[in-house]
């Protein structure tokens, strides 16, 4: 039997609360169509390619039986019917929504979703010689917390869903004491899954370096959850009929987490993109307020500024797209007749709404590739949306891009450093590189074409990960392994020598390591169809070598390459040809291959460079850089503080023209006159944010229990910051 293309699974469109409301019960049960995949039950869990569902409830130390998608009765009925009392249905629901969300991303990105790796403690002397660990699946625990909360844990690479007894403000809305399961809410599952996917795309976005960073995570996750509503045809038609096509009126599509919101004592949903309940208990549309962007710092609330901007862009495009339908239906008066809309009209409106929503969703997702790898702001996200869309879609008759600009402008979100809010000035400028280095860039571009070819036909996500990693770090020849690896190891041994002698615990088998490494490379060659005498000089090394014209590349990337890193607080690392060069890391290497609606093709390879500058701060001002090459902690005076500032850039290479197209940067160094100098303003801003502003933005929990907002132990993405 051929495998079917999809697995149909029943679930709630929103959450269980809408199934017991007269006006919505008929549309709340939908069928999720998830691309077919084999499920592995061998360990007793529900394990697919991307996720594994483990239904263990630590609060009562109980494991629940795992739902089996294989049984005939299951298949015949599109899975279990929605039920709050059956944990197996809960598993089905999280699986269906998480996979739907993942697949939406893959459709928009045109490539496979990879999870963020697990960073490891790097300590080769004690056998810890890996920087990171590949994560094949995220874990989903549908019943992991006994509170009104749910989160993606970047530490555990897991989604934890809570359940709790509801405490509604008005008993007419919900029976007090009702058990509320966050794992049964489409919005919450989609939101948390998006956190995990975004972490895989941009791992530094969980470090708040300005007020927008965590807010972006929250807002983006809400945007995905919201626009997924529009992919449920029956729900869409129902709501269009109800609002007579005017989606700026109160409707379910613009609301998030109904049951959860009521259960924790809100007057309705948890968040609403277009309006809210006013003092009289009535719904009213939200008017954009530019002050909010300056005042609101709590990540969820700040994120909802972004959400409402995107939603407004959606609404204005939708209005334009249905203008003709409205004219037809209203005989040109613009005023629709009393009574219900004709079902045909509803269908047409729904189709426009769904199309627009999908476009918006894709624009929002694709823009992630065009964002700086660290320190994202809403303004930069707007620029990324405009740039990514301009690259792919040449003509823009419905003025999607203007709609975005307009909506962001109304909320006081302005990108820094541009002169006017036009599409032209918001689009990142194309790079011009002088003749000589340009040719060097062409060499790198050609090399990346090779990467594109190697990666293009791989579907196995772990292979994609391994190949990408190998392209960054290189594949040496067999005879070079010992040299290459041995040098690395020896250097590390030197670094650790003193400590190692003290502890006398050199647990280290050199030959074993070499052996394992060469086997690993052999496997890689197999995957990559490489001959045994073929080698790859890694991208990292190529950048080190090619980007050696200090001034040119410092200006281009805002980062420091070559031998002058120490002057800017950047650590050196010893290259294999024995020279000290400024250290940096390459991340997020990815192929972007998309076809636009008019046949435009985008063939790009994108990668990010991240670099760290260690500086000493005094009186909230930059005092001096810290000599980066020393491993020792500096002797600081009492009022001096050591601060690590991360600079970064995203480089976008056009594979067709072999040109470096954009450099989207968060500079460590900037050019002033002919001088290259440290970006002191950015350092000061970031320091100020992390040391003063955040104290006010910290939740009560953080205030009492953790020392800093960047606390690795605690979860940054809780659905609700309680107190």
């Amino acid at each position, binding site marked *: 039997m051929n495998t079917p293309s999809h697995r149909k699974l029943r679930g709630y469109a929103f959450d269980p609360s809408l199934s017991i409301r007269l006006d919505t019960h008929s549309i709340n049960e939908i069928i999720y169509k998830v691309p077919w995949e084999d499920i592995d039950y061998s360990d007793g869990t529900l394990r697919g390619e991307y996720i594994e569902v483990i239904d263990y409830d630590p609060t*009562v130390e109980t494991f629940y039986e795992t739902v089996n998608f294989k049984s005939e009765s299951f298949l015949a009925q599109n899975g279990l019917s929605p039920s709050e009392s059956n944990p197996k249905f809960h598993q089905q629901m999280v699986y269906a929504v998480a996979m739907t969300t993942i697949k939406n991303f893959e459709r928009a990105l045109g490539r496979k979703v990879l999870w963020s790796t697990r960073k490891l403690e790097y300590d080769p002397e004690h056998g810890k010689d890996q920087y990171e660990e590949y994560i094949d699946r995220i874990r989903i625990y549908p019943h992991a917390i006994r509170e009104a909360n749910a989160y993606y844990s970047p*530490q555990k690479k897991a989604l934890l869903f809570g359940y709790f007894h509801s405490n509604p403000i008005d008993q007419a809305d919900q029976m007090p004491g009702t058990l509320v399961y966050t794992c049964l809410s489409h919005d919450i599952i989609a939101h948390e899954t998006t956190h995990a996917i975004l972490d895989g795309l941009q791992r530094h976005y969980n470090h708040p370096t300005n007020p927008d960073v965590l807010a972006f995570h929250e807002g983006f996750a809400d945007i995905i959850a919201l626009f997924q509503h529009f992919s449920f045809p029956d729900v869409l038609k129902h709501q269009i009929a109800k609002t007579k096509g005017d989606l700026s009126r109160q409707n379910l599509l613009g609301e998030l987490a109904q049951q959860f919101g009521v259960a924790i*004592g809100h007057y309705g949903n948890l968040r609403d993109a277009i309006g809210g309940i006013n003092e009289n208990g009535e719904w009213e549309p939200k008017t954009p307020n530019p002050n909010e962007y300056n005042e609101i710092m709590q990540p969820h609330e700040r994120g909802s500024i972004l959400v409402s901007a995107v939603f407004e862009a959606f609404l204005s495009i939708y209005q334009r797209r249905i203008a003709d339908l409205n004219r037809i239906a209203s005989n040109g008066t613009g005023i629709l007749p009393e009574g219900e809309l004709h079902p045909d009209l509803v269908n047409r409106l729904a189709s426009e709404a769904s199309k627009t929503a999908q476009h918006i969703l894709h624009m929002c997702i694709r823009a992630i590739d065009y964002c700086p790898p660290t320190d994202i702001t809403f303004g930069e996200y707007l620029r990324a949306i405009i740039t990514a869309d301009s690259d792919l879609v040449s003509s823009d008759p419905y003025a999607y891009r203007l709609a975005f600009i307009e909506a962001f402008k109304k909320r006081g979100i302005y990108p820094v450093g541009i002169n006017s809010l036009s599409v032209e000035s918001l689009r990142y400028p194309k790079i011009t590189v002088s003749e000589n280095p340009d040719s060097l860039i062409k060499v790198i571009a050609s090399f990346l074409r090779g990467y594109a070819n190697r990666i293009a036909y791989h579907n196995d996500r772990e292979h994609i990960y391994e190949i990408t990693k190998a392209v960054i770090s290189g594949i040496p020849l067999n005879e070079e392994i010992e040299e290459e690896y041995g040098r690395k190891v020896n250097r590390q041994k030197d670094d650790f020598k003193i400590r190692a002698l003290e502890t006398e615990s050199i647990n280290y088998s050199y030959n074993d390591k070499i052996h394992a490494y060469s086997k690993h490379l052999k496997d890689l060659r197999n995957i990559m169809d490489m001959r045994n005498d073929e080698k790859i000089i890694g991208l990292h090394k190529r950048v080190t070598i090619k980007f050696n014209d200090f001034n040119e590349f410092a200006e281009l990337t805002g980062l420091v390459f070559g031998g002058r890193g120490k002057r800017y607080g950047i650590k050196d690392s010893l290259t294999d040809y024995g020279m000290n060069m400024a250290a940096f890391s390459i991340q997020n290497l990815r192929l972007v291959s998309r076809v636009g609606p008019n046949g435009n093709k985008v063939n790009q390879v994108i990668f990010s460079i991240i670099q760290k500058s260690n500086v000493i701060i005094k009186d909230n001002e930059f005092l001096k850089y810290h000599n980066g090459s020393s491993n020792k902690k500096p002797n600081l005076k009492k009022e001096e503080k050591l601060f690590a500032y991360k600079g970064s850039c995203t480089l976008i290479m056009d594979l067709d023209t072999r040109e470096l197209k954009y450099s989207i940067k968060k500079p460590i160094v900037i050019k002033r006159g002919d001088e290259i100098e440290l970006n002191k303003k950015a350092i000061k801003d970031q320091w100020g944010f992390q040391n003063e502003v955040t104290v006010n933005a910290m939740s009560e929990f953080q205030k009492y229990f953790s020392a800093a907002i960047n606390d690795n132990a605690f979860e940054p993405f809780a659905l609700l910051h309680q107190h």
Partner: protein
Amino acid sequence: MINYDTITDVDIRMYGTGTGDCFVLKFFYNTEKTFTMMIDGGTWKGTKAHLSKYVNDLKDYVNGHIDLLVITHEHKDHVYLFDACSDIFINDFTFDEIWMAWSEDDQDDLVKEWKDKFGQKKKALAMASDQINLKLKDTTLTNQLKRGFKGEEIVGRFNHFSDALNDFKALHFSADKTGEYKGGLKGMDIIKNTIAKDNIRYCKPGEIASISKLPGVKFHILGPPQSIKAIRKEHGKKGTNDTYDHNKVLKRSDSFSAVITDTTTNIGQSPFDSKYKTDCNKIKTYYNNEDAFWRTVDLDWLVSGAGNLALRVNTGINNLSLAMAIELEDSEKVLLFPGDAEFGSWESWHTIDWDKKPDNGKHLTEDLLNRTVFYKVAHHLSHNGTAKAKGLQMMTSPDLVSMATLDFDAISSNWKTTMPNRGILKELINKTKGRLIIMNEKNLFYDFDEKIPLADRIKSERSRLNEKQQKAYKEAYKEEKFYKQYRIKV
């Protein structure tokens, strides 16, 4: 009958027992007779031997007799002296009157019901704290966590969290020698059952009390907020914002505390039919696989649940502080003792339906704040202890003097991040022109960067006082080994 004349002075003495409140107020009349009032007797920590020195000094100061004892709320830093030095208080002191908040009236059925529930939460907090301690001792978990990036730091953070939680635990209840939960604080128990013998006046907001032995003084009860009825009613009206913070702890069912303390009822058990449970070993082996132990979730729900619970319980009790404005009628001066009231309580003071309406047309609460010349800072200068617009900004008297019971030598280390709050500190120093008396200024700084010692800043701010004020302040202030004292001249 002794005929009193008017009050001439009030001495406010703050005992330096460590972060925590222990105040004695002595009202002097121009006759020999005085009236002594004690507000709270607590500290964050200290041995019996150490604390006895303070209590003995206090005893000598008041000749073993307190006319009025006020206990603001049941937190260790407000009642611990009665536990550690119970023998002195029981044998060598006499107390005429004892006042507490209405919410301490255990005879009241509604309070009792509420206290039972609240007790459950406190117990849950204690048990969760113990479970977290236990889990963190499991090296399978900690070793796995340490393998990850910054793993040592993360494990350290969890340990820090566990310590912080233990501190919260100690703030709220007594444990026996084995660390088992034993119920409410022993200090409170001793006051209620041994010292007071049920002779307690329970005060409600809106009451204006006076004592026959203390003519010319009115006690305006500000908090704790809400009548018992309102407490029982869990929420405000739809569409209004009149729910108070402490209502949060009155949730009909708190899933987290239920599952910790009570596994016998429905709430504490698995919500699903037992037929769905599985004892399949495969899945257990998989979950408990040592290499993937960092992905297990047995600790997470405890950390998040217990942390939030601790904060809720803490705010709940703080907002149940007996808060009072003591008015010296002739001079119209007001001494404000809010206990540890947090914002929710402050806010409610402005909605009290007072019988008395000031001539100036203001709400009495605002009027009292306007006339405040002495403010005992609530909650040791923390961010949530002093309301801004509805509190400090209304204290407009040019004579304002303030005392804060903060001492970094005796405090939970985890409180140091929230205390002192720079914003409140700045405004207080400004408002009092440096007449802010802190229990122990050592290791306290005015600014974030810890460059300006607080003591220096306070001193330099005092230069803003005119000569007469400076002289007056010098005369009124007294500092000895065991206490700091300020005299209000009437």
